[in-house]
């Protein structure tokens, strides 16, 4: 009889039968098949009336779960669409629209071993807590020093990638939180090396600037449901306002800015380089690897950006805003870590960066959640996922030009709570490139979902 088993992230089929999915591997004398064709191969063999000894899955015991999840109408529609496309596909919903609950409902309905893949360790904690609360289920976790497998297990993209050879045959459902990460060249192997026939992708920002999101159809499934911020704001999401405050660099800063930008601009002129889009810029960055002059120009530009983004004038404006919204819960976002620590030291508020230990981070977020700490300052590490229900003011002191970053930061504030009004306030330096960076991130806010 044919035998099919799992071998380090792939399947091996022994027997004199080829399938459209396999390839003869002379190194071991068997057909080798990508793990994500598991369902396809079984279906193919069944249609061909061939019996196979299936030793592939190695599954944890199923546990009893009790669900108290009640979905809203748009969530039900999303889940139905997903079920109809053979339990595969991507759901595109704004942050705070309750993507998690749709996934939990899917787990409850399918009742299979599930791996939830998330971008950060914070999100592991958040999902585990949510699963405990809503499904009354203890979860396993892989990552951050932990390694336990349960019926429902939560892990990071990094761990799912590194341990694909060991974990690939242990789950039947994969849930990818912030699924746009999966399309990167490394992480996409997660999708290929796991057998799970059921797959759900969740994101608020489906499209990637590099167009790789088109790969997701093959890896997870097509987008099966999509709804934007505007459609849900008010009824399901908190209504929000946006305000821009422009400040003038101090004379000294202005001088440094002009001279450094001058070095950068004259280099571009000399070499007749024009930077019109991100691809142009990428090309320029590559030349800095071998051309010391180009590197000098890049460093000058970075210095200018740093001056503009981290201007002293912004801190004065920040002080005013902190005074105005002293009764609210405030998140401050910056581009650079230096500024995070400057703000933390100046205003004596807690900071979270990639250097913050996991325990301190947990403690700060918990205290921010329960209202003890009214303000948290962070660079880019909190852009994604972390859930702070009643944060209502976002102060942006700097960022990249990416629309995704903007949408994600906005998403931190949109969780609906009573009659909350969310405010996103951007403080930018006048007459610097910050103006156009800011404009760039708003360009697509209309269809930001």
């Amino acid at each position, binding site marked *: 009889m044919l035998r099919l088993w799992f071998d380090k992230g792939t399947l091996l089929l022994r027997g004199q039968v080829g399938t459209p999915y396999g390839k003869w591997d002379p190194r071991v004398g068997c057909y080798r098949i990508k793990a994500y064709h598991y369902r396809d191969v079984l279906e193919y063999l069944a249609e061909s009336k061939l019996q196979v000894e299936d030793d592939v899955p190695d599954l944890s015991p199923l546990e009893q779960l009790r669900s108290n999840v009640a979905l809203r109408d748009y969530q039900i529609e999303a889940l139905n669409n997903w079920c109809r496309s053979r339990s595969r596909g991507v759901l595109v919903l704004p942050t705070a629209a309750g993507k998690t609950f749709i996934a939990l409902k899917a787990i409850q309905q399918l009742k299979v071993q599930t791996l939830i893949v998330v971008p950060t360790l914070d999100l592991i904690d958040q999902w585990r807590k949510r699963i405990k609360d809503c499904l009354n289920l203890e979860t396993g976790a892989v990552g951050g020093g932990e390694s336990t497998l349960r019926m429902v297990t939560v892990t990071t993209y990094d761990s799912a990638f590194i341990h694909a050879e060991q974990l690939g045959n242990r789950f039947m459902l994969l849930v990818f939180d912030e699924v746009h990460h999966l399309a990167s060249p490394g992480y996409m192997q997660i999708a290929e090396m796991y057998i799970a026939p059921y797959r759900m992708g969740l994101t608020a920002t489906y499209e990637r600037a590099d167009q790789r999101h088109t790969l997701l159809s093959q890896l997870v499934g097509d987008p099966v449901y999509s709804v934007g911020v505007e459609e849900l704001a008010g009824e399901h999401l908190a209504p929000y306002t946006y305000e821009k405050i422009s400040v003038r660099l101090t004379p000294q800063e202005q001088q440094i800015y002009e001279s450094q930008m001058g070095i950068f601009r004259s280099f571009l002129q000399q070499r007749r380089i024009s930077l019109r889009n991100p691809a142009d810029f990428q090309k320029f960055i590559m030349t800095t690897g071998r051309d010391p002059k180009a590197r000098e120009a890049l460093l000058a530009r970075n210095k200018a950006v740093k001056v503009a983004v981290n201007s002293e004038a912004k801190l004065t404006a920040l002080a005013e805003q902190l005074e105005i919204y002293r009764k609210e819960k405030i998140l401050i976002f910056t581009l650079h870590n230096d500024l995070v620590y400057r703000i933390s030291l100046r*205003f004596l508020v807690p900071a979270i960066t990639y250097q913050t230990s996991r325990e301190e981070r947990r403690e700060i977020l918990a205290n921010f959640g329960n209202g003890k700490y009214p303000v948290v300052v962070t660079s880019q590490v909190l852009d994604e996922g972390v859930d702070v229900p009643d944060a209502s003011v976002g102060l942006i002191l700097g960022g990249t030009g990416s629309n995704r970053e903007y949408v994600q930061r906005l998403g931190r504030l949109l969780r609906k709570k009573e009659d909350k009004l969310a405010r996103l306030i951007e403080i930018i330096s006048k007459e610097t490139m910050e103006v156009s960076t800011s404009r760039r991130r708003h360009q697509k806010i209309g269809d930001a979902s």
Partner: protein
Amino acid sequence: MLPSDLLLVYKRKGAILPRYAKPSISNDEAANFLITAYQEHIGEKKKALKALVAELEDKGYEYRFVRALSLLLDRKSTFVCHSRADPIDLRRKIFQVTERFGVPTTSEKRQKIIESVASKMSLSIEDVEAYFYSDLDSELVLEKFSAPLASELLGEYNLSLTQTMLFDATELNFTTSGNWQNIFHAIKKFGLIYEVYKDNGLWVKIDGPASLFKLTRRYGVGIAKLLPVIVANSEWIVKAKVLWRFTNEICDFKIESQKHSTLLKKPCLTTITYDSSIEESFACQFQALTSGWLLKREPEPVSAGKQVIIPDFSLEKAGIKIYLEIVGFWTEEYLLRKIEKIKQVDVKLLLLVNEVLACEKLSALERRPQLDLIYYHDKIPFAPILRYLETEFEQVKSKEVQILRGLPIKFTEPVVAFNEFAARIGVSEEAARNFLTANIPSDYIVLADVLVSTEKLMQIGRRIKEAIDAAGKLLLKEAARIIEEEGVEDSANILAKLGYKIKWRGINSEQAEISRAV
């Protein structure tokens, strides 16, 4: 290994090579500058040290080279947080006071909060400011540093650089002079797959399970980790296919011990656990037996199809080779699989199995006499091993004789070398020699290692005589050249057979002549 943004390579016409830091005045200078900087910054903050490192970048050194060296030195350093208060606890106290007083938006309000915390923790205001973020990476203080030599640092850099480039490797091919057990152990540990092939020695090709579907960098990290185990040997050639990330093209990489071994740091290998003392003591005791069998530890792997068997020992006598392996912990399935693998190759392998280390009860195995297994309890028993060896030896020999007897030995070629003949029909050279000297075919004569046809002998005799007749005398080296031209190497024996003797003139063989023996 380094972060990939510090990688420096030369890439030309599809070939790729790391930009090795060769020993030179300027490279030594950079290395020494950094090593001294670290030594002098013991007790200072990391940010002061890194500022000095940045200075070196400004002096015209390639910044990726400088940063990589600094990173390697970081790994030889201990950085600690210098603070009389636990910074996390200190911050917690400050944030708690902020919670009561409200976020300070003026410096006066801020001062008040700091003062209140300082008095509560019996610290000065300056202490509170200094310790607030004293656990940040840049604020840590260099406590200990073990300084390498500049040459060691550069060697380590070159090895790390090669490994970093191999992160992007899709496959690796190598051949090397030893250390096979470590290498194959590592291949398995890193989840790689190997195939062996012969190409002027034994070559191993490395990639991974999913490499079958497309060229993938997935196994690059495993390949990079394997490199030190290979280059720890004295001789090696390493080739790789590298998928260059910026252009997405495959580039060829090749280094070899002859050219590169002095550039790369020789890693010291930790001896692996299963390379145990039991093998050591076995080797000693066996050699003391003077059994006539030549024992060799870790012989070159035996290729079994595309896989290999790496026996612990080879034992050789009169051209007959028997392999021997001491099995540690085992299960019946493990032994059966091993035996299955051995069957694929035409070699004799004796397994010494410790019953105490059995992971399950012996059952069917024990009653299979055809298996080459010897069980033992605590001491390896030499008597049964020698009995086995002698029995095998006799068996192989008599089998060989049978093979040879059955052959219609009829040669057509004028020269038959014993070793070539033995290899052709699959017997030991010894057996071939014994058989052929005992059964010399008609029209042939026997020399030390070859048979030569009488026709060939006469042909050589004719040519030598002609040469002597023409010149009146013949130098030995001239005669040897003629004999070699005729395809025979053993000129001294040929001349003796033809009835010539050598007349030496002093010790210089250039002047030696030959003459007919009287």
